[in-house]
């Protein structure tokens, strides 16, 4: 692993964002719109019903944490798509950059995007709704790490599918994370789901993170067991996604599809 080459992948994305207003908007605009829109909706609901006080915190917390997962996923898949759109993929893959170095570079880009979106959303939530997500204290760390890890798995699978099916699969960069959303119990407890969907939720790591978030916001002790389950599941997800990724890479080399992606 050559970290200079990994850094080059990150620098390439930084150059891209430095020069593109549309891309900067993508990092700041959507998270800001999400928190503004849904934040005011929750404030309105709170005024309508006095029985909902923790609801605002649950909702805003969930909104911010879901965005962490989504940005982590997009940080990987969109950065990969940038190289396809620029018809630069061949230049990347005929260089000494290994596929693992390239993937690590994309992961680092996703970390940067997550940090930016997280702090911006937290800032807006603090200013407009007096919601301080940092009140969750150190509990926030395992929650976010687990969500970022799941975002990476989805991002890596998205890239694998694009390697396998070509640019037609690019829509997955926006859609795939949302497939997990209903079963992740982002805005409602898992027991809201009907029985058979609860079974699905049990094998999705993010459902444990959101359950844990609600427990922590309620002031209950940190649910170690839930977080441990999420971490184990995330480990499995990452291993499976990496397996699929390397398999897709080998298949792409055998099928000769890399030069054709994006044509």
């Amino acid at each position, binding site marked *: 692993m050559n970290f200079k080459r990994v850094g080059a992948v990150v620098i*390439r994305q930084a150059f891209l964002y430095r*020069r593109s207003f549309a891309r900067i908007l993508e990092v700041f605009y959507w998270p800001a719109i999400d928190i503004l829109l849904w934040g005011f909706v929750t404030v309105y609901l709170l005024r309508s019903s006095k029985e909902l006080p923790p609801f605002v915190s649950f909702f805003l917390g969930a909104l911010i944490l879901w965005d962490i997962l989504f940005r982590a996923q997009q940080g990987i898949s969109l950065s990969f798509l940038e190289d396809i759109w620029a018809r*630069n993929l*061949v230049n990347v893959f*005929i260089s000494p950059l290994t596929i693992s170095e390239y993937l690590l570079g994309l992961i680092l880009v996703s970390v940067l995007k997550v940090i930016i979106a997280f702090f911006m959303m937290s800032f807006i939530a603090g200013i407009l709704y007096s919601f301080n997500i940092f009140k969750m204290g150190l509990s926030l760390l395992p929650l976010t790490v687990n969500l970022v890890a799941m975002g990476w798995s989805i991002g890596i699978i998205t890239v694998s599918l694009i390697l396998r099916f070509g640019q037609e699969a690019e829509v997955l960069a926006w859609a795939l994370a949302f497939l997990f959303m209903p079963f992740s119990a982002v805005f409602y407890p898992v027991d809201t789901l009907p029985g058979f969907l609860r079974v699905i939720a049990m094998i999705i790591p993010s459902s444990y993170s959101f359950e844990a978030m609600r427990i922590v916001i309620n002031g209950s002790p940190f649910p170690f067991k839930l977080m441990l389950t999420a971490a184990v599941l995330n480990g499995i997800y990452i291993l499976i996604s990496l397996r699929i990724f390397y398999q897709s890479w*080998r298949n792409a080399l055998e099928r000769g599809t890399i030069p054709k992606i994006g044509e």
Partner: protein
Amino acid sequence: MVILKAERIRKVFNGTVALDNVSFELKKGEVLGVIGPNGAGKTTLIHILLGLITPDEGYVEVFGKDLKKNRAEILHHVNFASNYVSLPLSLTPWENLLVYALVYNVNHPEKRCREVLELFELTDVSNRPSRRLSSGQMMRLALAKCMINDPQILLLDEPAASLDPEIALRIRKLLRRMCIEKGVSIIYTSHNLRDIEEISDRILFLEKGKIVAIEEKSVLIQRYGTLEGFFFRSLYDEF
């Protein structure tokens, strides 16, 4: 001294044979011109030599090492430019080159970027977004990227297609100089037979994925008058 060796390369895509039993060697400081009609397998061959496509049969050795097993190490000393591959248009030429200088682990990357920008007369436009460059300037940028790591092997796929004749001539001269002075080996594909005739030492003629001929340019010229004569003669003999 043999620097690259392709041995019995075969590649089939969905039942269509793209390359069949292709074997050849590239010597140090040599320019091998690859010609052939559309669909002959020229680009597939280049992609296999770059490790971008795995052959179904056969193998590629570069610097005496197996490409499949030593991909990153070998590609450190190889580079590629094609009329069909671009660099990110949102980045300036300077930024594009700097990224690749880092990817190739070049010593003094900024100095090297300045050198190649100057070599390809791109210094004046180095801070302009690449999307504002002409197609000729973009091709020169691709060639500049290709030189960033001071490669020992260059694979060029239709590199002169977007260049005006004067620039194309200067680039061919530059490439020849690199072969003589630095011992760089080049595989050069083009549909422009005059380009190939001017720059190549040897010619590899591919048709329907097979090597029809691989011969010293001087021998072909002596036999057929021009490379064009050889090309059409080979094709008509088929019919």
